């Protein structure tokens, strides 16, 4: 076990090291951290309000344990979901796995070490969501010190079982399923899983909403019956909820101890299973495949083209061929529009269908501003932009010794993320024109505004990535996971564009043309401004990020 601890310390150090970060970058992280505080407060405020009102409604019926039950079920769900990605990337896809395997370690020791970082990231979420929620619940139920003591212990134990169960299931899958024979294919499948999951849940919820739920009201009157229903599939959530509601009683203590024992047993089980199955899954993994050589096919690719086209193609090829980039960038960008279309088509008589024809009757300003708002949400999270630099990873330096001006490289990267934005705009356009029947003129205005917005979003994302790129990754997932980077551009754009929308909304403008003209003007000014800062940044930073 001593060896395992040492291994874990080294692995954590390797992944979380700030050693090669300059002081300005550290200050940057601090600033980002500070910027997140208002956002965090907002979330806390929301949680507090939710728990407060739920408590007020459920307490008279003696069903307040449902709040905790829901909370634990939700958290368990989150933990499992997040762990799928982190476990696979840490256990199976990271490049350093091979170098550890050749060292004289037992499989369980490597697993123990490899679990540390994914596990720590769960605790991040745990501290942001679960801890304050438990505290709020404590305040509302005016609990004593004993509650808080148990709450902290339960907080510490909660992530264990979801993480361990997910890891065990994944180890079985990787061991026995055929997918593990090809790393690339596995990665695509895993990437798609999340999206299928999201669409599936949505469809299920919609189907479920139709069926009546008359006995629910009955359950409200029966103590803990509702809790049992909610935690049906999550016994541990039931245990922790009871432990926290029956504080001071023997039942509470018993449930608490059961929960702790289960967690400890889970860890033991995890290491035992890992000892047997981990290596068998890892060792089968191989990257890439080789085809038979066809001379003509190869010769055909030899065509002179401009450096710019060549650069753009190179970027696109890397995105399309790297499974993680493909799922995170292409699939995710196209997901939102597709999801949108699925929603409308699933609901042919719903309020959205043919909604476009009503647009003519609405105030022009409001039409264009709402559509603009939608665009901001759809384009703000373009992963192609905020992975622009980091995607290159250790091969970034190749750009530096080739005789290509920095501005060309940056522009080619911008065009790549703009192109992905463009694709999702096209999809949205199909939805708008053919399903929603938005009038052609309105669509055209929206499309032009969206193109400019897409360009701004691409630049903003690239600048944020450029500010602190992650080049030292060992698995492509690290480019997206465990960095604030996904939220920052969205938060920034939401703020800036939110203010613009708000100002225009309350302004004296009315017509569609005047509003769009002003909006376009503002966007163009923004573009020029950001372009200026980007140029400055490239000049200062381009040759200094290594």
């Amino acid at each position, binding site marked *: 076990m001593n060896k395992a601890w040492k291994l874990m310390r080294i692995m954590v150090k390797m992944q979380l090291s700030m050693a090669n970060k300059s002081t300005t970058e550290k200050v940057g992280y601090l600033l980002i951290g500070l910027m997140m505080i208002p956002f965090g407060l907002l979330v806390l405020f929301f949680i507090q309000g939710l728990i407060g009102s739920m408590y007020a409604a459920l307490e008279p019926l003696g069903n307040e344990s449902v709040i905790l039950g829901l909370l634990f079920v939700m958290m368990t769900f989150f933990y499992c979901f997040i762990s799928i990605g982190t476990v696979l990337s840490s256990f199976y896809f990271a490049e350093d796995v091979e170098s550890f395997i050749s060292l004289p370690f037992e499989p369980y020791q490597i697993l123990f070490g490899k679990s540390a970082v994914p596990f720590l990231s769960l605790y991040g979420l745990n501290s942001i969501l679960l801890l304050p929620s438990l505290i709020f619940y404590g305040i509302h139920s005016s609990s004593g010190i004993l509650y808080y003591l148990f709450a902290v212990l339960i907080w510490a134990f909660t992530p264990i079982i979801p993480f361990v169960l997910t890891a065990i299931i994944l180890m079985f899958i990787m061991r026995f399923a055929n997918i593990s024979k090809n790393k690339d294919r596995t990665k695509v499948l895993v990437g798609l899983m999340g999206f299928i999951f999201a669409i599936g849940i949505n469809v299920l919820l919609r189907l479920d909403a139709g069926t009546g739920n008359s006995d629910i009201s009955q359950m409200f009157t029966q103590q803990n019956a509702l809790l049992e229903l909610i935690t049906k599939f999550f016994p541990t959530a039931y245990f922790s909820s009871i432990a926290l509601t029956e504080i001071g009683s023997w039942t509470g203590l018993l449930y608490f101890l059961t929960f702790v024992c289960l967690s400890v047993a889970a860890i033991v089980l995890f290491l035992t299973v890992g000892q047997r199955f981990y290596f068998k899954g890892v060792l089968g993994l191989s*990257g890439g495949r080789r085809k038979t050589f066809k001379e003509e096919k190869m010769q055909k*690719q*030899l065509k*002179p083209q401009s450096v710019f086209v*060549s650069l753009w193609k190179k970027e696109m090829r890397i995105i399309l061929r*790297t499974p993680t980039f493909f799922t995170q960038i292409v699939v995710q960008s196209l997901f939102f529009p597709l999801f949108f279309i699925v929603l409308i088509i699933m609901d042919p008589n719903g309020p959205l269908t043919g909604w476009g024809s009503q647009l003519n009757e609405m105030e022009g300003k409001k039409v264009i501003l709402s559509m603009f708002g939608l665009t901001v949400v759809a384009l703000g999270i373009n992963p192609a932009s905020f992975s622009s630099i980091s995607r290159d990873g250790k091969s970034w330096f190749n750009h*530096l*010794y080739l005789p290509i001006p920095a501005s060309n490289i940056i522009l080619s990267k911008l065009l790549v993320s703009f192109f992905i934005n463009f694709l999702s705009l096209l999809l949205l356009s199909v939805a708008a024109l053919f399903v929603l029947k938005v009038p052609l003129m309105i669509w055209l205005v929206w499309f032009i505004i969206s193109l400019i917005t897409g360009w701004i979003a691409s630049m903003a994302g690239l600048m944020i990535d450029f500010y602190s790129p992650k080049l030292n990754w060992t698995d492509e997932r690290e480019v997206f996971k465990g960095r604030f980077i996904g939220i920052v551009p969205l938060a920034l754009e939401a703020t800036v564009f939110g203010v613009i929308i708000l100002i225009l909304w309350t302004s004296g403008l009315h017509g569609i043309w005047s509003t769009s003209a002003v909006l376009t003007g503002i966007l163009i000014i923004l573009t020029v401004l950001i372009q200026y800062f980007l140029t400055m940044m490239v000049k200062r930073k381009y040759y200094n990020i*290594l």
Partner: protein
Amino acid sequence: MIEINQISKSFAGKDAVKDLDLSIPDGKIFGFLGPNGAGKSTTIKMMTGILPIDKGSIVMNGIDVSKDPIKAKLQFGYVPDRSDIFLRLKGIEYLNFIADVFEVSQDMRKEKIEYLTKSFGIYEALNDHIQTYSHGMRQKIVVSGVLLHDPDVWILDEPLTGLDPKSSYTLKEMMREHASRGKIVFFSTHVLEVVEQLCDEVAIINNGHVQFKGNMAEMKQQFAEDDNLERLFLELTQNE
């Protein structure tokens, strides 16, 4: 002609290269020797524009590397010490990309790619992703990329590590041929036999300082008491 004037580079306050002064004449194979961590790669990275130069200047064929980087970069071809190139590209795509960057004509690229990759024995692998290449094959594709655009100056960071004897021989012949046309070959290595066989001039560096520079004859003369190069090398670099 490459002139390296008093360049320095430090990482986090620690000097990697300090006041390094070198002049590399045309038509010579210049060997750059030193123990691990001596500062060879750091120097080469400054020459190629990968690392900014803290102090001093590098002038390549009359062009200042930091003042006119693009023009300077058109002069040389560089083989890095690590073969972390764009692994998701196919070999042929990588070479085509390099040819586009250096504007090699259609006929020229066809002919050269065929010639180079065939002599290195990687022609049949050109349609595979570089990711599936072995270390030596990656090295060869990078070397082919450099030779493809026929630069005046070759800058090679440990080009022979990982190459099999035949390819190593081919590359050495190519280096000789290049120098005999009056061009520059600048390369770093640890392998003393290679230096003895191949180099016209050498510089030995240790702890970021030049310990010795001159041609092979001078070196042997100056250290006449040393009967072989290995002992000389050890003597020069042991002062720590």
